[in-house]
């Protein structure tokens, strides 16, 4: 469904992403992992058309979408969420979601009712009339997801929707994501919460210092020495091995 080939991006002298490629099959949940500053968010901004890649191409549903503006990409059915949540602070939760719903429902009543349905499905039924600015961080993360879903997009790029949530909230959102996937959506998600990645993603990619260093099923990735080193520093894998043997 999504084929990303050799994306590169540098900011001034800093190479944020170098030669990154990845594939997402329709109906799957794919993880994108990596330590802080690895370039994950930058990958998303390039894929979704927010920044122009220096090099590389993106294909979505077989169509070349490299360099298209975000609204065109969204119209084709791919949408990103923001790591730092971006609610429309002055609007209510339902109005926030309705902005997404307007993409395919031009009539206000329809958009509002789609928004209500989506909100209820994501467990936000009681908050629909509250201003978005009054939501907790968990509520705002969920609102990001709800708005994205309301656009009717089939491929959702989620940027750390679980960061800052308590375990019970994580369990809840994992269930919601699985349910949405079963309804026919596809996910590419940046996530630091390993427990969530393990239980959701079939495959995952690991980015370190802008380069893809590994990909495969998450369970295998956590045992991959290069991945462990990326997270814990040089020599960490060897030390862990020794500790395990001792």
């Amino acid at each position, binding site marked *: 469904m999504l084929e990303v080939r050799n994306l590169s991006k540098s900011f001034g002298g800093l190479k944020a992403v170098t030669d990154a490629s990845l594939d997402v099959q329709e109906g799957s949940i794919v993880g994108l992992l990596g330590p802080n500053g690895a370039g994950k968010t930058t990958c998303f901004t390039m894929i979704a058309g927010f920044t122009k890649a220096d090099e590389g191409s993106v294909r979505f549903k077989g169509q070349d979408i490299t360099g298209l*503006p975000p609204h065109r990409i969204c119209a084709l059915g791919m949408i990103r*969420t923001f790591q730092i949540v*971006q609610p429309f602070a002055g609007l209510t939760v339902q109005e926030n979601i309705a*902005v997404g719903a307007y993409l395919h429902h031009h009539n206000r009543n329809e958009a509002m009712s789609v928004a209500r349905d989506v909100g209820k499905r994501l467990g936000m039924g009681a908050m629909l009339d509250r201003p978005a600015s009054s939501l907790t961080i968990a509520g705002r993360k969920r609102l990001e997801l709800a*708005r994205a879903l309301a*656009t009717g997009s089939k491929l959702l790029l989620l940027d750390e929707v679980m960061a800052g949530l308590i375990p019970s909230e994580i369990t809840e959102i994992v269930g919601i994501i699985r349910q949405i996937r079963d309804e026919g959506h596809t996910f590419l998600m940046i996530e630091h919460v390993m427990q969530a990645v393990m239980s959701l993603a079939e495959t995952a990619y690991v980015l370190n210092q802008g380069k893809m260093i590994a990909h495969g099923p998450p369970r295998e990735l956590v045992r991959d020495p290069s991945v462990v080193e990326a997270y814990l520093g040089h020599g960490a894998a060897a030390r862990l091995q020794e500790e395990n043997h001792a």
Partner: protein
Amino acid sequence: MKSQSIGQLALAAAAVAYLIGVYFASSPVWMGFTINALIIAVVAMSWNITGGFGGLSSFGHAALYGTGAYASAILQVKYGVNAWVGFAAGILAGAAMGAFIGALAFRYGLRGSYFALVTLAFAEVLRICASSFEFTGGGSGLQLKLAPGLANLQFADRTVVYTALLVVVAVVMILTALIKYSRFGAYLIAVRENEDAARALGIDTYRIKVQAMAISGAFGGLAGVLYLQLWLFIDSTVVYGSAISVEALIGPIIGGAGTVWGPLLGTLGLHLLGEGAKHLLPNAPGLNFVLYAVVLICALRFLPQGLVGLAGKFGAFTKKKEAEDA
């Protein structure tokens, strides 16, 4: 969605009562004064589309107002075109000017203070041009021939003028309400609240902003044409001057930016205040602007949502509705 509150309904009712009361006022001064205020209210409604809903504060709405007035005046004076055609042309010219300024400014990503300054500069360029070229009547301006009659869109009877203006104001307010509750309005508000999020949700923010400028331009041009048909005379200072740009933004901010009633309430309130001051201190030109400025500063500090926001705090229905839902 937020419901209307009793306070807001009362405020709107007061405005309507005043506007009807003008018909029965003992002195014709009231009607003349209110006519002027209503024309400014239309400019304020024009500003409200971009500044209120879109968060794109223009400091040069005179560019739109003046373009509407000049387009119609030039067609009528130089080409002998019918006033009704000039009326339509003025609206279109305002819309075109709005779209042009917007297309340029937003193409290069101007916002905030930069957008404010560039709109101001456009108004100023147009003012200087209008005062310099023979085509626009130069420094002496343009004068329409006095020829009262429906066909020429000139009315000798003040009451007719006033009624026509009330109809126009009502139409512009209805259009504003339609915009506010449409997909376009939702998108425009989304752009104001968070442009990045709006882009992610599939909104072509550039297009929305340019369209908003075009609509605002149409309203602004309309106001300019109304002025022209009322006074039959324009010059560059009157229609492209900074006073119009200031009045365009001050009414909505005080009345409530991004609301349907705000521009009308704010403009009427300010003009009543200015008129009152004029009676207390005659021979003080510009005193009304000093008052407006003081009110503006106070409103920015104490009434962030304007009069409409303030009124909304009294007798809100929303609380009750939530309780029923629960």
